[in-house]
């Protein structure tokens, strides 16, 4: 049985890391990073059967691909906090000669990253490829993938959805961060996603819903999703999150999609997020 309180404690530190990284870099994407902090914490500290002694191929372990690479701060924080690389390295985010590129990349050899992402729409295809390898190899572990919701406006995602259903790729759990916002505003104003659950279902996916800012619900739905794998259908979780969750002035708006807080805003944000595991040092 998962210790929800422990996971929430970690998520609070992850949110602090996000604010501090983006503030120090004076750029980056805090909004959806904060919104997805509970998801990532649950994934890496509870859900994934993974080896933090990183192996690119990911044989006989669950693997995760981030398609909406701009939320790199939350991923970097969770990877560091779960032991993939030293927490101190978070201070190099977006700096010259860093392994923590603005968007995730394999090029600098950061453990935990298996493919570059940033240009949207590609991660679900990549995840399906990794799932096909597991099937060919008789490896019964799972492939997880996260996409944004605005990202679903990319046509390639729908190509991938079609493929997974047609080829019965049932060892994959995709999640959509359905926060309803994107750079230029609400999804409904920029480019409506319409009946999103209906669309995934019509494309042949088994659709689940998750409250991405309730650790309890995140764990329950992940557990349910796992139980739905291996049944001939790919599984998707439509995860409702609040962009900026945990920092009051960053919620209720799309303004913090890709903007760093100033000194004053950072102080305010950090005062709302408990330091639980120790902040990484900033030189």
């Amino acid at each position, binding site marked *: 049985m998962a210790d929800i309180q422990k996971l929430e404690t970690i998520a609070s530190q992850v949110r602090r890391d996000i604010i501090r990284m983006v503030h120090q870099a004076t750029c980056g994407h805090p909004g959806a990073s904060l919104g997805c902090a509970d998801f990532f914490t649950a994934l890496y500290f509870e859900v994934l059967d993974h080896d933090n002694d990183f192996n690119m191929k990911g044989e006989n372990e669950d*693997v995760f691909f981030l398609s909406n690479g701009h939320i790199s701060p939350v991923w970097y924080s969770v990877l560091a906090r779960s032991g993939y690389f030293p927490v101190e390295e978070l201070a190099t985010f977006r700096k010259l000669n860093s392994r923590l590129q603005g968007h995730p*990349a394999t*090029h600098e050899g950061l453990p935990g990253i298996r493919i570059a992402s940033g240009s949207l729409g*590609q991660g679900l*295809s*990549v995840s399906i*490829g990794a799932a096909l*390898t597991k099937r060919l190899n008789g490896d019964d572990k799972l492939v997880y993938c996260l996409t944004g919701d605005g990202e679903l406006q990319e*046509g390639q995602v729908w190509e991938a959805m079609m493929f997974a259903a047609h080829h019965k790729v049932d060892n994959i759990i995709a999640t959509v961060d359905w926060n309803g916002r994107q750079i230029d505003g609400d999804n409904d104003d920029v480019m409506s996603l319409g009946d999103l659950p209906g669309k995934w279902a019509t494309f042949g996916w088994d659709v689940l819903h998750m409250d991405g800012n309730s650790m309890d619900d995140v764990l329950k739905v992940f557990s349910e999703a796992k139980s739905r794998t291996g049944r001939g259908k790919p599984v998707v979780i439509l995860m409702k999150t609040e962009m900026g969750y945990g920092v009051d002035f960053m919620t209720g708006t799309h303004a913090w999609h890709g903007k760093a807080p100033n000194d004053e805003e950072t102080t305010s944000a950090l005062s709302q997020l408990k330091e639980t595991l120790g902040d990484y040092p900033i030189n």
Partner: protein
Amino acid sequence: MINIESYGKKATRNGFGDGLHEIGQQNPDVVALCADLVGSLKMQAFIKDFPERFFQVGVAEANMMGIAAGLATSGKIPYTGTFANFSTGRVYDQIRQSIAYSHKNVKICASHAGISLGEDGATHQIMEDIGMMKMLPGMTVINPCDYLQTKQATIAIAEHYGPVYLRFGRPSWPMFITEDHKFEIGKALQLSKGKDVSIFATGHLVWEAVEACKQLESEGISCELINIHTIKPLDEEAILDSISKTHCAVVAEEHQILGGLGGSIAQLLASKLPTPIEFVATNDTFGESGTTSQLMSKYGLTSSNVVDAIKKVLDRK
């Protein structure tokens, strides 16, 4: 003296199909994907013998590149198959991010390259693909010249770790490469020794260059013909060695003059050994419908164009 003879005709894409089947037998990690062009890419033999290692993706090339990147990440050696246009321009960003930047072991196999595909017209006749692919850091670019060399290359790229663009064509084409002509990635293949002019040719234009050399030798001009099947990485040593003897060059390719093999060789020679060069290539144009021979002739890609280029460069020497 050039001593190259044709022993029949077959399309280079058949070399891909046969090579894929052979490497499929040798290497269980090889998998193949196709975007609804199995017959055109001659992939049937692989599919018949290894159905579980083949993935039909439908008309969805972007997804195909992403899936290939995922398969490569987890240790497979994916070969993607579609036309050259849809293997490059249509999916450039997918290749750039998920394959090249991420340094994935994906083999992008592109048929119907260039103008020689014929009647389908300019929508399908890509002549910018070498340029796009050679600009990607870490990408190996190979354009074999006949059936056997395409087969050799298809097999060889499985042993090379990293992204590869393998370019071949539709039409039936003279076969002249023999088992004695060993294929090595990045190693130019000398087809004749000469002292007056160096001809660097790739793809279908190698045969046109063979014919041009034969004609000119009968006129007393000594031609050194070098087949550059690997455009990137370029065999700089072979090119510089040849030029240090002949002091002039012709580059022949079924591609745009901008961004092709000619550009790579000109860049090399400008910095290391400035040399008069002439180019046989299409000149900043799209193609059109027509038969292969009509198009090669209209767009200046025949042996007589190679002859003219050689005479011109000799005058400039």
